């Protein structure tokens, strides 16, 4: 029975993922019809630099000479204005496993990845220090990878910032990083990281995955709150504190958005569970139109 139950769950999961793909396709068709970017020119552009090989890179661009000399894998990077590297950074810290945030973040990630793939960009999924390249026109591969991530999901200790701060080492200039996170870390440090990354010329889409309850908590009485990421605790009488909290959260996310808008290098997109996937994607494209 357990076997059948798992099968049924998997089928339902795949169904959800396919719906997300279809939804993103639909939105993409609606929004960018006629803005299709031709990339028929191939890889005939100028050499730019080397970078370390990652799983999924085309072996055609592996520099064998360097490998023979250094015994390390490097791939050649070429100047190509029509292709972007897109890094989809998935926060898998413990807090993301509260409620359905992790699954929801996967759905949004899947949709966004599908859009970038459709736009012939190089799409990488970064999770738990792993960087997985999604092959072109690889919707099935994309679903498989996301399904695999979901199946093998595990919480990472600590918050998402540790790895996110190292993204400029991985992502080249003018690339795009999409962060899928609840952003629940020290707000000052989050702002600092986002600011630093913006300064490197990387474009950041911050998908703020958050539950309705986290946006508008309503607990009363004496509570001992525990932060799932840091295990930090707080004993507090919860009456009459939530207005203060909502105000602080608004200030926090508002400051992030202002920061990205001011630098012209990104966008903050709120993805609370009462906002539909279509609305999130439309919001995502608003920036593109701008």
């Amino acid at each position: 029975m357990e076997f059948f139950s798992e099968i049924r769950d998997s089928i339902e999961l795949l169904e959800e993922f396919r719906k997300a793909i279809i939804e993103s396709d639909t939105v993409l068709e609606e929004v960018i019809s006629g803005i299709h970017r031709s990339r028929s020119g191939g890889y005939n552009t100028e050499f730019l630099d080397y970078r370390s090989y990652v799983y999924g890179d085309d072996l055609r661009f592996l520099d064998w000479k360097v490998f023979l000399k250094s015994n390390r894998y490097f791939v050649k990077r070429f100047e190509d204005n029509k292709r972007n590297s897109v890094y989809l950074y998935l926060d898998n810290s413990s807090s993301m496993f509260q409620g359905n945030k992790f699954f929801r973040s996967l759905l949004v990630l899947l949709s966004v990845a599908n859009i970038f793939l459709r736009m012939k960009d190089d799409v990488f999924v970064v999770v738990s220090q792993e960087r997985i390249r999604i092959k072109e026109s690889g919707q099935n591969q994309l679903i498989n990878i996301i399904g695999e991530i979901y199946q093998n999901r595990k919480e990472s200790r600590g918050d998402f910032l540790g790895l996110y701060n190292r993204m400029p080492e991985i992502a080249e200039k003018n690339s795009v990083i999409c962060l899928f996170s609840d952003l629940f870390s020290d707000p000052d440090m989050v702002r600092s990281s986002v600011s630093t990354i913006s300064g490197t010329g990387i474009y950041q889409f911050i998908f703020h995955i958050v539950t309705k309850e986290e946006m508008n908590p309503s607990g009363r009485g004496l509570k001992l709150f525990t932060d799932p990421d840091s295990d930090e605790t707080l004993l507090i009488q919860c009456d009459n504190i939530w207005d203060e909290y909502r105000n602080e959260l608004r200030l926090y996310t508002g400051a992030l958005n202002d920061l990205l808008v001011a630098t012209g290098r990104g966008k903050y997109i709120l993805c609370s569970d009462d906002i539909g996937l279509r609305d999130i994607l439309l919001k995502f494209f608003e920036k593109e139109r701008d």
Partner: protein
Amino acid sequence: MGFTNSTFLYALILAVVPVIIHLFGIKRPSREVFSPLPVLLRIRKKIIRKKKIHSLILLLLRILLVAGSVMFFAGLFVSYPSASSDFSDGCLILIDNSPSVTVNADGRSVLSRIISSVTEYAARKKNQCVSYTVITLSDRKRFDVLSDNVKSDILRDRISAGPKSVNIERDIPEVLATEKDKRYSSIVLFSDMYSHFVKEISGSLRILKDNNIEIEEIGMPAVSNAFIEHIRVERSQEQRINLIVTVENGGESVFYGSIKLFENESLLDKTTVSLAPSDRTEVSFEIPDGKENIRERFFAFRIEGDDFDYDNTEYFYYREGGKGKILLVNGEPSPDETKSEIFFLSNALKSYFGESVRIYSVLEDMLPETPQLYDIIALANVSGIDDIKAGLLLSYVNEGGKLFISLGSRINIREYNNLDFLPADILGLTEADKNTGIVAEDSLFFESVPDILQGIKRVKLNKFFESKVRKDAKVILKTAGGMPLLVSRGYGKGLVMLYTTSVDMDMNDFPIRKNYLPFVSVLFGRMLEGSSERKIIYAKGKEEVSVRVQECRNGSINITGRKSSEVKVLCKQDLSQRMIISFTAPYENGFYKITEDNINAIMIVNPDKSESVLKRTDISEIKKNLNRNQSSIVSPNIIRDGKMSLVEFLLLLCAVVLLSEMFVMNRR
């Protein structure tokens, strides 16, 4: 600021309850994983600071609530200092110098204590009052004295016990009315606080409060005061009477002393009495009955040995034979007693007056030669009145005797008509209509029992003597046909009543009707009352006395007691339009005689019993009440006078605590 029931302040310990709840009543927190904790941590300090202030305010509110409740029940009051600016006429001292200030206790009189208190007060207020105006409330003496001259010897010379008791409610407004042009910076009352003051405590307090009058302690110890509460007479055996005296100790300490019985200033008997405070006992004095010719006796009961120097001698007037003696002259005796002429009259008199009236009956030939020994002589169907009898009766009536004449078949009309004092000429016997009843001509005569007037209308009157009313005579009852039936006439100092039918059932059925007894009681009662040679007037010292008289002249009358005095009289009319004279009784207790043309009376002045109960009100209680009245009251005592029961208090407190807890819990 002060407290009416300071005992309640012990309950302030309850104020620690909220603190204990605050310290130890913390609820177990519920654990919860909360992802946005970093956001919350950023505002933690701000929240905790707010929470601390909030819980501190809550704690303070709870403590205040408990402490406020306690003070509420403790009767918190806030006094206002009396304004004392722009006063140029010094201070006013009111002294209650009622007779009770003569009381001695611990070797000092109340008056001396009051004088000491006044001097101490003046010394204390030296900086506030340069001069004093002193007014004594009982005798209304008034004098001014400089602050430096408020000394005991000066005050002792000027202040003495007054003649009459003091009523704060009456006397202070009167005194202040005479001082209305003055502006005193303070008014203070010195009183012994005896019952005559406190019995109207609320009214008195109102007067004190309204006039912003302070009251001063004079440090009076408890005293004993025995007084005669009641006297009654019982006939113990032949030729002896028992005077039974109820003695009460109206003081606050034990009385051990004696009661002496005097008659006409001579000591007759003495007995020793011991009485606890507020206790009473009966003391009996058995003395010989008076001789036949001694009809009035004057007794005095003097109490010795109590602390109260007030004259509480009780004077007691006793008339031998009670209210009077009635001689019934039977004109138609019968071996069958029920057929005797006086059978119904005699029994009616006995059943109504009982032992208080002595009734004698004789046959018509046995009319005594000394009729003056009797208050009333009733001639019932006496056949004839010869010249000797007529002479005796004439002098009897002239000297104030009362004569009742009822007719019957045996009377000699001619001899009767020869009597000069007869109220009406008798014309002859006539038979009345069977349905003829009796109606009242003078309804006021029966005002005390008005039901008679309806009842006598149904009396079946068979026969009566027609008569013609003489000059000065007054018809009281008449037949339904308008013929006189009961006629009265004042003659000399006496009175004659003529009943033109029989007092037995020969001529009417009145004796077997229910109104016969009230009729006889009113008729003979009025005759005894009016017949008495002397009116008896009971009074208290300086009391306003009213006496009914036949005629009145404004002016003065002589009152003779141990001292003779002339008192002014006023003529008035009572509700029945009868003439009364009004005058003020002397202050000193004792027997007084009033002998004037229009009034012959004995006045007995006795102590006021209410003055004799010396229950002082604790002056601190009065001060509290006074302060409370002069303050803003924040306690419920104004409604309950501080007498809320402990159960009520606890219930209310529980309700308050529960309500506050519910409020707090609801906020969580």
